[in-house]
């Protein structure tokens, strides 16, 4: 095992060296760094050219220049000694990178996590209902999303998700027709989701249409879009739904102890909403994180105290419920600051470009909303296009597992279908997906070049593109180095996870 890892790391290092040499040469032939001066007619043209030649060592041939760069890059092994050169603007590449990495992570991480969670859920559900109307429509949608060019989606999102939506928010009234339209769409989705006989589908469709249209119309009528909020009642009802759902999925509703511990957590959350949240006006970021952890901890504790024959299950369910409901409470608190934010952005809350409103000043809640409002569109674009592959993968994987003999055995010994699906099939279906997820996480830092470009997000992709279009080798190499190292590391992790999860696969020692 250790020798496998060491050998892989050694080989990866060689691969990285080779690739970085190639990349450096490619950057060198991708343009003339002196182009802008050659075309200019400034009096001190010669001087400027000489300065740039000195800065980039252009008097040395490119292959030799690579080794000069490598000399600096190798010092990165010693902390604090890193020398990746300077950008054309004279900024240290290491500084530029350390500014770009967090911003990229912010953008890509949430999108990837959401895409993975949503994609896997959809994939599993469609696999369980293979060849249903739901399956066909989801398959079509995933293929459609898969075929969308992200820059095209981005422009559409900007137009309809930001510009039109902001226009709507300026005067948030919902006409009966619009409410009914949204209701019908929701009704169709619910009917597809719940399935069953034609009669049942019709009933579901009618109920969902009426209820959704009613809610939308009520929200518009009560000025909810200007002054949004959830309030204890909505939190309690949604929380109860979450508690039921989590229990039904993970333990079965017959497990009363689990169900009750989940309900206790919901009740606690409602109490917190009434008691604790008003005290949080000046809260800092870490306090929120701490409270989130406390919510999980409280869930574990309550589950443990409930005891019963399967403590672990109650703890898991209570912690999950508690975390989700705490999220609702947090959302509610953010919503309370919405009117203030709305005013601060002069009525255009959803942003089309950048990662924050320049000059915006405010407490955690205001800046938090600002961040969401800027991340909303790029995240949606990224989710849309990466959802498809996760859905397809998990569907295929789940179908494969559901046809296995051990699933038949599990059914034959009389286990309820829920246990068969969740415990026997789902876990095994996740194994191949885990590898893909590891690969993707490895590629995260590369950023979403085009998405960042369209939304003017100052991340790694932007740094890379800027460097390329100005024939600036150092930032390009810096980005490449970071991306390459993470990719190689996560490839190794993917292989190791695979062999850890599936004992049938062994790494070659």
């Amino acid at each position, binding site marked *: 095992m250790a020798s496998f890892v060491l050998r892989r790391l050694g080989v990866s290092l060689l*691969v990285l060296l080779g690739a970085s040499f190639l990349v450096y040469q490619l950057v060198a032939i*991708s343009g003339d760094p002196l182009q802008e001066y050659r075309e200019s007619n400034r009096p001190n043209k010669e001087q400027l050219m000489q300065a740039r030649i000195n800065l980039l060592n252009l008097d040395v041939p490119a292959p030799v220049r690579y080794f000069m760069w490598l000399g600096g890059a190798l010092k990165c092994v010693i902390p604090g000694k890193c020398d990746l050169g300077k950008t054309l603007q004279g900024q240290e590449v290491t500084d530029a990178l350390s500014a770009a990495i967090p911003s990229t992570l912010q953008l890509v991480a949430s999108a990837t996590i959401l895409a993975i969670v949503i994609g896997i859920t959809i994939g599993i559900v469609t696999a369980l209902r293979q*060849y249903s109307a739901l399956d066909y429509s989801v398959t079509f949608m995933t*293929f459609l999303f898969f075929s969308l*060019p992200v820059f095209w989606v981005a422009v559409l999102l900007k137009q309809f998700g930001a510009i039109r939506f902001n226009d709507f928010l300026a005067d948030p009234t919902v006409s009966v027709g619009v409410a009914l339209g949204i209701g019908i769409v929701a009704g169709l989705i619910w009917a597809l989701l719940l399935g069953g006989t034609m009669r049942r589908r019709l009933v579901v469709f009618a109920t969902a249409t009426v209820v959704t249209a009613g809610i939308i119309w009520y929200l518009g009528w009560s000025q909810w879009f200007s002054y949004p909020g959830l309030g204890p009642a909505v939190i309690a009802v949604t929380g109860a739904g979450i508690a039921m759902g989590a229990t039904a999925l993970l333990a079965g509703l017959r497990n009363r102890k689990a169900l009750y511990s989940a309900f206790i957590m919901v009740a606690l959350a409602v109490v917190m909403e009434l008691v604790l949240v008003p005290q949080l006006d000046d809260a800092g970021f870490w306090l929120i994180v701490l409270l989130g952890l406390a919510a999980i901890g409280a869930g574990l504790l309550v589950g443990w105290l409930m005891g019963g024959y399967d403590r672990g299950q109650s703890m898991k369910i209570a912690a999950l419920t508690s975390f989700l409901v705490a999220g609702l409470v947090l959302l509610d608190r953010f919503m309370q600051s919405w009117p203030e934010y709305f005013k601060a952005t002069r009525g255009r809350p959803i942003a089309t470009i950048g990662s924050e409103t320049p000059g915006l000043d405010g407490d955690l809640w205001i800046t938090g909303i600002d961040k969401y409002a800027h991340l909303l569109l790029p995240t949606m674009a990224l989710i849309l296009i990466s959802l498809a592959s996760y859905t397809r993968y998990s569907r*295929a994987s789940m*179908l494969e597992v559901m046809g296995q003999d051990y699933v038949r055995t599990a059914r034959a010994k009389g286990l309820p279908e829920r246990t068969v699906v969740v415990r026997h099939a789902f876990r095994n279906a996740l194994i191949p997906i885990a590898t893909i997820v590891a690969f993707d996480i490895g590629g995260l830092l590369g950023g979403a070049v085009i998405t960042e*470009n369209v939304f003017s997000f100052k991340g790694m992709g932007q740094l890379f593109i800027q460097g390329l*279009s100005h024939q600036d080798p150092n930032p390009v190499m810096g980005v490449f180095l970071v991306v390459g190292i993470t990719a190689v590391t996560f490839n190794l992790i993917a292989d190791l996870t695979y062999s850890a999860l599936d004992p049938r696969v062994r790494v070659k020692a």
Partner: protein
Amino acid sequence: MSDQPNDTIQTRQRLTDELDSLEVAADLKGKSQAALVRKRFLGHTGAIVSLVVLGCVVLLAVTSVGIGPWHGWWKYSWLDTPPLQNGGKPTLSLFPLSAGEHPFGQDTVGRDYFAMTMRGTQISLLITLTVGIISAVVGVVFGSLSGYFRGGVETVLMRLTDMVIIIPVLLIGAVIGYNTNSGILVLGFLLGLTTWTGMARLVRGDFLSLREREFVDAARLAGASDRRIIFKHILPNAVGVITVNTTLLMSSAILLETSLSYLGMGVKAPDTSLGLLISQNQAAFSTRPWLFWWPGLFIVLICLCINFVGDGLRDAFDPRQRKIRLRRMSETPHDDVEGALLAAAVVSPGAVRSGWEDDAPGGPLGETPNEEHR
């Protein structure tokens, strides 16, 4: 129960049914692997419809504005600048169906947007095709050599693959973008040289499992040369993986090309491509939305069709995912035919793969996770 008269009829009916199915099963025996695949593919409605639509798009793009010296049947070329009519609004209408003077409208200087979109479609399709062919060929060569010979050859080839994987495709775009006079085929060729890695890995995985099979041993014992074993025995069995991945590769290639052109690194003016059209016209979305809609719709249409065809091919070559349904259906005797069909396919070598052989994740005919176009 048996003394009721209509029960005999039922029994007879069932017997004839079974006889029928037996006959069909006997008939199946004679079918080759290719015939089975063809039959399954033709049964995939989505794939067939997509194939037809794709064919129509290609035909429309090629004949309307023509290629090379041939002018095509459309009255404008993508370079003409007729006077602007009605602010360049599209004249296409469905009720009554008529194309009008400029069905897709005109751009800001009056060029006919239908002709431009068609020209863009041509270029994008051409690049897609080139990328598909080049990367399929390179990928198959790398994958089969390393999978078949293993040892030193494998190490060198696979490390080379690893190296190409981490080289960003955008860089290639930038290099081509700098040398503006290099043609469209060069762009396709160079892009193909960077996108073959997924194919190489999958083909290698397939070869690794196939080379351990008995029929390969038999061929070797009979004195077949390496070349003969690769071309006659293993490659035909890997054709499923190769075809499916080539289609998927092409669908991601069209997105890659349009993305590069969008960033100003692929196709350059005065020539045009679908991505370039969008990039040139995105700012005009609020005033002339059609300039933005048409090229985008064509990208989505082409890509969607290719994806569906790929899906149909995957189902045709590897029917394992259909198992669950077949099992349910086989409760009625008549559907045993399809069960027999499945069994025949599973027994035949091309359809069976030993799953997670080495480090080829993503399933036997897995979609290569291609996030390049993000």
